[in-house]
C-alpha cells in the first residue's frame, strides 16, 4: 500500500466537493528554511522576497509533494489544483508529525479537472494567483485557459521533459539542441512554444528520469523488485547505454530556485543528476543502495522477443542524457544527491519500508530468462 491516509485529517482545511472555500491564511513565518539544503549551492534570494500566491497544477503525486513543502516553508501561499483523487496531503516517510501538521495546515486545495477549461478559467480568474507551477500539464490547450485567466501572472513555471530533444549521436543534450516535433512529448514542446508566444514570463524545466521516494514511475522500483526477489536483472543490448537520473528533491530545489529569478525568465533548464550512468551501472547502484549483493545481469536482444504491450525495461533503449551546466551556472543549482546516495534515500524511505506503486511483474523477465536457458 503506497500512500498512507493522513491521520491528521482534522488539521486539513475543509475541502467541500465543488468550490474552493478555504479561509485566507495568515502566513506566519517568512523563514526560508528548506527541508533539504543543497550542498554548495548558492541560495538565491529572489528579488521579490515577499510571499507569493502560488498555484500548483497537480502537486499531490510526486514532484509536487516535495515542491509544495518547499514553497510553504518559504512562506508562500500555496494552492494545489487537483481532482482530489489522491489525498491532498500525505505524511511523508521520515517527516515528523509536527512538520507534517505545519505543512498540511497551510497548503490549500482547489478541486477541479484541468481538462474542464471553462472551470479552470473562471476559478483561476477569481483567485488571481501570482505564480503558476504547472507540474502535470501535457498539452498546450490545457495551459491557454490558465494564461487567459491570469493576465497579471508574474511567472509560469512549467515541468517539461528532456524527452523533447531530437535523438542525436552527439551528447549530452544542451538546452540549445534541436527538439523533435514528432516525439512522444510533443505536447510539452507545444506548451513551451505557446508560453514563448504569449506575453508571459515563463520558465521551462526539462528533467530526464526522476527518481526518489514515492516515485510512481517504476524506475528504481523495477530494479528493487528484482533485487529483493534475488532474480537476475535482464538488461537489453550491451547494457552500456547511458542514461541519467535526477533525485526528486533536487528537482524540487531547482523549481524553487527559478521562482522570481530574473536569470530564469524565458529560459529552459535541463535538471538532473550531475553524472550519467550506464544501464548495467544502474543495476549495480540499486543493489548498493538496498544493501543487496552484486546483481547477476543478463543481456538480451529485444528484437528476439515480442513482449506485447508490456515494458521489459523501464528506460528507452538508447543513450539519453542532458547537461545541467546551464542551471549550475545561472541558478547556482548543484544536485545534492549522487546516484547511490539518492537511490539509498529512495530505498530507505520507500521500497525498503515495504511500499511501492506497482506490484512486481516478472512476465517479461521469464520470457527472456526462459529463452536464455533454452538456447544454452
Amino acid at each position: 500500500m503506497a500512500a498512507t491516509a493522513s491521520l491528521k485529517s482534522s488539521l486539513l482545511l475543509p475541502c467541500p466537493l465543488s468550490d474552493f472555500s478555504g479561509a485566507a491564511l495568515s502566513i506566519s513565518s517568512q523563514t526560508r528554511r528548506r527541508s533539504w539544503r543543497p550542498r554548495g549551492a548558492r541560495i538565491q534570494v529572489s528579488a521579490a522576497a515577499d510571499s507569493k500566491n502560488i498555484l500548483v497544477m497537480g502537486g499531490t503525486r510526486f514532484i509536487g509533494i516535495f515542491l509544495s513543502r518547499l514553497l510553504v516553508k518559504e512562506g508562500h501561499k500555496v494552492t494545489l489544483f487537483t481532482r482530489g483523487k489522491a489525498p491532498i496531503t500525505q505524511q511523508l516517510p521520515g517527516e515528523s508529525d509536527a512538520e507534517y501538521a505545519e505543512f498540511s495546515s497551510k497548503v490549500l486545495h482547489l478541486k477541479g479537472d484541468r481538462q474542464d477549461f471553462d472551470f479552470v478559467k473562471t476559478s483561476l480568474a477569481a483567485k488571481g494567483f501570482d505564480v503558476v507551477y504547472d507540474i502535470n500539464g501535457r498539452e498546450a490547450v490545457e495551459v491557454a485557459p490558465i494564461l487567459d485567466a491570469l493576465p497579471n501572472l508574474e511567472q509560469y513555471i512549467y515541468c517539461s521533459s528532456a524527452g523533447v530533444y531530437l535523438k542525436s549521436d552527439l551528447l549530452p543534450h544542451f538546452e540549445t539542441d534541436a527538439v523533435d516535433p514528432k516525439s512522444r512529448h510533443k505536447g510539452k514542446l507545444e506548451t513551451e512554444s505557446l508560453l514563448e508566444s504569449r506575453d508571459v514570463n515563463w520558465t521551462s524545466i526539462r528533467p530526464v528520469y526522476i527518481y526518489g521516494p514515492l516515485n510512481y514511475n517504476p524506475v528504481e522500483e523495477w530494479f528493487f523488485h528484482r533485487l529483493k526477489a534475488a532474480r537476475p536483472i535482464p538488461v537489453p543490448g550491451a547494457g552500456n547505454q547511458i542514461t541519467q537520473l535526477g533525485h526528486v528533491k533536487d528537482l524540487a530545489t531547482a523549481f524553487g530556485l527559478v521562482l522570481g529569478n530574473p536569470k530564469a525568465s524565458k529560459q529552459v533548464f535541463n535538471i538532473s543528476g550531475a553524472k550519467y550512468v550506464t544501464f548495467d551501472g544502474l543495476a549495480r547502484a540499486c543493489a548498493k543502495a538496498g544493501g543487496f549483493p552484486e546483481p547477476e545481469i543478463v543481456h538480451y536482444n529485444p528484437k528476439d522477443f515480442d513482449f506485447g504491450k508490456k515494458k521489459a525495461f523501464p528506460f528507452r533503449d538508447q543513450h539519453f542524457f542532458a547537461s545541467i551546466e546551464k542551471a549550475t551556472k545561472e541558478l547556482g543549482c548543484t544536485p545534492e544527491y549522487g546516484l547511490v546516495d539518492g537511490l539509498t534515500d529512495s530505498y530507505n524511505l520507500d521500497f525498503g519500508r515495504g511500499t511501492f506503486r506497482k506490484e512486481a511483474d516478472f512476465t517479461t523477465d521469464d520470457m527472456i530468462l526462459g529463452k536464455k536457458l533454452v538456447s544454452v
Partner: protein
Amino acid sequence: MAFSSTAAATAAAAFASGRRSAACRPSSQSSSSFLGASFPRVAAVRRCAASGAPARRAAAVTVRAQAASAGGKKSVLIVNTNGGGHAVIGFYFAKELLAAGHDVTVLTVGEEGSDKMKKPPFSRFSELTSAGAKTVWGDPADVGAAVSGASFDVVLDNNGKDLDAVKPVADWAKAAGVGQFLFVSSAGIYTTSDEPPHVEGDAVKESAGHVGVEKYIAGEFGNWSSFRPQYMIGSGNNKDCEEWFFDRIVRKRPVPIPGSGMQVTNIAHVRDLASMLALAVESPGAAAGKIFNSVCDRAVTFYGLVKMCAAAAGIDAEIVHYDPAAVGVDAKKAFPFRNMHFYAEPRAAKEVLGWTSTTNLPEDLKERFAEYASSGRGEKEMSFDLDDKILSAVGVPVAVAA
C-alpha cells in the same frame, strides 16, 4: 583549411576564418563571477562566449593581442614531443600564443634532422618561425642547454608521460624561476566508472606515469596546471584519427566496429585544447593548482562517428560489428579508440577559465575530409590485414575494387 599564414596578424585572420562565426549575443545568461577584473575587455569577450554562441574568433584574438601588448606579454616555452597524438597540441598552442602577441619558443625533443621531423606538424614549423617563434631541438634532460640559457614566464611540458621524462624539465623550470608550469597529461588515467563522464577530481589510476607527474609538479610549483586530453583531430596531426575511417570509406570497404558501436568517446578539434591552454596562460591565478579535462563538450558514439565521416565524405558507409575476442584480434590494433566508454567532460575549464568548446564534429570532419581528399591518400595502395581477418571471421565479403 590548411594554414598558410606568414605574419602574426595574418595568422590570426587565417585562424579565425576557418571557424563558424556567430554573432556574439550579449544575454542575460552571461556569468562573470569568475572573470578577473584585470582584463575587462577580454572578460567581456569571454562573457559573450560563455553565453553559448561561439565567440567571434577574430575579435577575441584582437583583444588578447591588446592584452599581451598592454603588459601581459609572456615568454612561453613549449617542450614538445616528437611524435604521437599529442604532438599537434604544441603546434596549435604556439600559434594561439603568437597571435596573442606572446614570445614563443618550441623545444622539440630529439634532433632537427631526424626523420620524425619530416612529418606534420614539424614539417610545418616554418609557420611558427615566420610568426616569430623560436624553434630549437634538444634533450629535455638538459633544457637549459637546449634553450641556451633563456628564461621564461611559462613552461608547458607536452612531452613526458612519466616522472623520468618530466622531472628534469620541472626541476630546471623551478631553478630558473619559471612562474607557471603546465603539463599535458591524459584523460586515460581516470579509473573506469559506471557513472560517466570523467570529471576533474574523479579517482585516477595511481600507478599511471602521468599521475606521478601531476603529484610532483603540484609539490614543486605554486602555479601549476594539468591538462588531460583524449583524442584530437586537426590539420597537422601527427597521428591518424579520422583518417582511419576515411581510408575505409573512400575505398568502399566495410568499417569494422568492435561491439555494439554504442561506446562513446570524446574527439576534440585541437584548436579547443590550444584555446584552453592559452586561457590558462592569460589567467594564471584562476588556473593555478587546477586540473582541466582537455576535451570538447560532446561525446560521440563510434557508430555516430562513422556516420559523420561518411557524411563528410559524401559516401555511404557500411558498418560491420564484431567481437574482438571471438575473432581473435587485439582491439587496440584493430580500432583507433579504446573499446569502451571513454568520456571526459571539460567542466573545470568552463567553470574556472570561462572557456567554451567550439568543436563541431560534423563540420570539422568536412574540413578534415577536404584535406584528406586533396592529399591523395585515398588513392594510395593500402593493406587492411586486420580488417580482412575480422571480415572473414564475421562472414562479410569485401568487393575487390575494380
